[in-house]
C-alpha cells in the first residue's frame, strides 16, 4: 500500500489534522515545554494513548505494520538532545514545521530551509561520525516486551497509567469549563437579576451563595458520577469479555476448579474444551482459568461497590439540585431510579437465595458450571446466552440510560 497516492492522501490528512489541532502554533509547543500551557501536552498524551490502543487492536487482527527503530542508545540520546534543542529554540517539530510553513508562518518556512541544510550536514558527517557512533551500544530493532520477555500488556498498562496521571495533573491548572460557567452565571445574575429562577424560599444575599455552592457541589458530583460510570462500564465489559473467552473455549476450564461454589466436574468433560489455551492475541500472557477466576472475583467486588456509590452519588446529586433549586430534577429522578434497578440487578442474589435468583454478575463457579454442562438443545443454548449476555446487555442498557438521564440533568443545571 505504500504507493505515492496513498502517501499523498495520508499526508493531506495528517497535515490538515496538525492545523486543526493547533499544534502548528509554536506558542503551544513552547508553552507546553515551559509548562505554562498544557493544551499540547494533553493532545500528545491522548494522541499517544489512542494510537497505542489502536495499534494494539490492529495487532489483534494482525493488521499492524510495525517499523521499529534501531535502539542505538548513544545516537538516539544525541539525536534526542539535538531535536529537543531545536524544538525548544523554534517551537516546531519537523512535521509541524512543514505544516506551519504551509499555513503562512515565515519563521517556519525558514526552519524548513534550515532542516534541508540539516539534512545536508547529516549527509556530510554520516561516513565520518555517524557510522562509528552507530556501533556503540547498538541493540538493534527491539521492543520492550522482547527485551524483558514479558507481554505487551504489562507495558501498556503502566504507560496508560502514566498518561492518565499526566492528564490528571495537567487538568487542575486549566480553568475548568464548568467553573467558567459558574462564574459567568454568578456575575451575570448578581447585579442584573437579584432573584434567580424566581425562587421563593431562598432570596437575596443568602440565596446566591447557597446556589453557587450547590452548583459547585453538583459539579463535583457530576465528575465523580462520570468516573464511577466509567469504572462500572469497564468492569461490565471486562466481565462480558471473560464470559466470551471462556464460552468460546479460548480459556480452558481447569479440572480442579476450587471456585467456591459446589462445582462437580467430570474429568472427561473438563478435558473436552481443551484447545491451545493461550490465544495469540493475549501477547503470550498465559491466561488460565485460575487467573480469570481472580479477575472475575475482583471485578464483581468492584462492580457491586461502584454501583452502590453510583446510586448514592446520584441521590446526593438529586438532593443538591433540590436544595439549590438548580432544576433538572426529573432527569435526576429517572437516573436514580435506573441506577437503583441496576444495583438490584447486579447484586449476587444467588449467594443469598440459591439458584432460583441470580444477579447479572456471576461467580467463576457459576460460569464454570454453565460452560462445562453439555448444552445441546436450543432452549438450553438460549438460556445460556440470555443468562450471561442478555442479562448483561439489560444492565448495560440501563446503565447507559441512567448516564444519559444524569447527563441531561448536568446539562440542565449547568446551562
Amino acid at each position, binding site marked *: *500500500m*505504500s*504507493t*505515492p497516492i496513498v*502517501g499523498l492522501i*495520508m*499526508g*493531506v490528512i*495528517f*497535515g490538515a*489534522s496538525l*492545523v*486543526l489541532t*493547533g499544534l*502548528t502554533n509554536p*506558542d503551544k509547543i*513552547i508553552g507546553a515545554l*515551559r509548562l505554562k500551557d498544557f493544551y499540547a501536552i*494533553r493532545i500528545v*498524551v*491522548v*494522541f*499517544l494513548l*489512542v*494510537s497505542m490502543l489502536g495499534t494494539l487492536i490492529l495487532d489483534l487482527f494482525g493488521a499492524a505494520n510495525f517499523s521499529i*527503530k534501531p535502539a542505538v*542508545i548513544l545516537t*538516539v540520546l*544525541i539525536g*534526542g538532545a*539535538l*531535536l*529537543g*534543542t*531545536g*524544538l*525548544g*529554540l*523554534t*517551537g516546531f*517539530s519537523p*512535521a509541524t514545521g*512543514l505544516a506551519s*510553513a*504551509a*499555513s*503562512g*508562518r515565515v*519563521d517556519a518556512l*525558514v526552519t524548513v530551509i*534550515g532542516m534541508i*541544510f*540539516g539534512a*545536508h*550536514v547529516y*549527509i556530510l558527517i*554520516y*561516513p565520518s561520525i555517524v557510522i562509528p557512533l552507530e556501533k556503540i551500544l547498538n541493540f538493534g*530493532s527491539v*521492543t520492550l516486551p522482547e527485551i524483558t520477555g514479558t507481554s505487551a500488556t504489562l507495558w501498556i498498562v503502566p504507560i496508560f497509567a502514566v498518561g492518565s496521571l499526566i492528564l490528571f495533573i495537567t487538568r487542575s491548572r486549566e480553568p475548568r469549563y464548568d467553573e467558567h460557567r459558574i462564574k459567568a452565571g454568578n456575575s451575570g445574575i448578581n447585579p442584573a437579576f437579584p432573584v434567580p429562577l424566581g425562587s421563593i424560599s431562598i432570596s437575596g444575599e443568602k440565596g446566591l451563595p447557597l446556589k453557587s455552592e450547590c452548583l459547585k457541589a453538583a459539579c463535583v458530583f457530576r465528575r465523580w458520577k462520570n468516573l464511577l460510570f466509567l469504572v462500572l462500564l469497564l468492569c461490565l465489559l471486562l466481565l462480558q469479555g471473560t464470559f466470551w473467552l471462556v464460552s468460546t473455549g479460548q480459556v480452558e476450564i481447569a479440572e480442579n476448579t476450587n471456585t467456591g461454589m459446589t462445582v462437580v466436574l467430570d474429568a472427561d468433560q473438563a478435558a473436552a474444551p481443551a484447545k491451545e489455551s493461550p490465544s495469540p492475541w493475549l501477547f503470550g500472557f498465559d491466561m488460565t482459568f485460575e487467573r480469570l477466576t481472580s479477575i472475575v472475583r475482583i471485578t464483581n467486588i468492584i462492580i457491586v461497590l461502584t454501583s452502590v456509590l453510583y446510586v448514592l452519588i446520584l441521590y446526593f446529586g438529586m438532593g443538591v439540585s433540590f436544595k439549590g433549586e438548580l432544576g433538572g430534577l426529573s432527569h435526576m429522578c429517572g437516573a436514580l431510579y435506573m441506577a437503583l434497578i441496576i444495583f438490584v440487578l447486579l447484586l449476587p442474589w444467588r449467594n443469598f437465595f440459591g439458584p432460583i435468583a441470580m444477579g447479572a454478575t456471576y461467580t467463576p463457579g457459576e460460569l464454570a458450571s454453565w460452560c462445562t454442562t453439555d448444552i445441546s438443545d436450543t432452549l438450553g443454548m438460549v438460556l445460556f446466552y440470555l443468562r450471561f449476555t442478555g442479562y448483561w446487555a439489560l444492565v448495560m442498557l440501563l446503565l447507559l440510560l441512567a448516564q444519559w438521564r444524569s447527563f441531561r440533568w448536568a446539562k440542565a443545571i449547568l446551562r
Partner: protein
Amino acid sequence: MEKSNNRTPPLPWWAAGILLGLVQVLAIALVKPMGVSKQFVVADAKVLEHVAPEYSDNHPLLSDEQYKKFGYGWWFNIGIVLGAFLAALHLRVWKVRTVSAWWKRNHDAPVLLRLIAGFCGGVLLLLGARFAYGCITEHFIGGWTQLSLSAIPFTITLFGFGMLVAYLVYPKAPNRFRREE
C-alpha cells in the same frame, strides 16, 4: 496577530488527540508509522545525485536504494504541506506571520533574530531527527506506540533538552498565559 489562533484552539484537546491518534492508527494499518524527517535527506540526496554523482555513489548513505527515489514518504510530506495549506485556508487562519507570542514577549520581536534562530533550530531538528532515526512523530509517538526500546532514551533527552532550552530562550511567559484571561 496570533491572538485568535492562540486563544481558541480549533479543537478541544481530547478531540485533537483522538483525531491524531486515529490518523496514526490508519497509517499503521495501511503502511507504517508516520515519519517526516527522512525525506529531507532524500531531497538532498536527489540534489547531490545531480551535482556530485560520484560522491553520492560512494557515500554509504546515499548509495542506499531507499534514499534514491521519491516514494510514499516523499508524497506524504507533500501531502502534509498541501493538507495544512488547505486546512489553514478553510479555517481562515492562513496569515503571513514571522514571530510567535513567546518570542515577542522575550525578545522584543526582532524578526531577523527569530528567523536566524528558526534556521539554526531547523538544522538542529533535522540533524537530531536523523541521528535518532526519526523525528518526534516517528520516534516519540511511533516508538511508544510500538513499545520500542529506543523510545526511552529518546524521550528523556528530547524533553530534557527541550524544556531546558525553552527555559533559557523563553524565560518570560506572555501575558495571555496568565490566569486572569
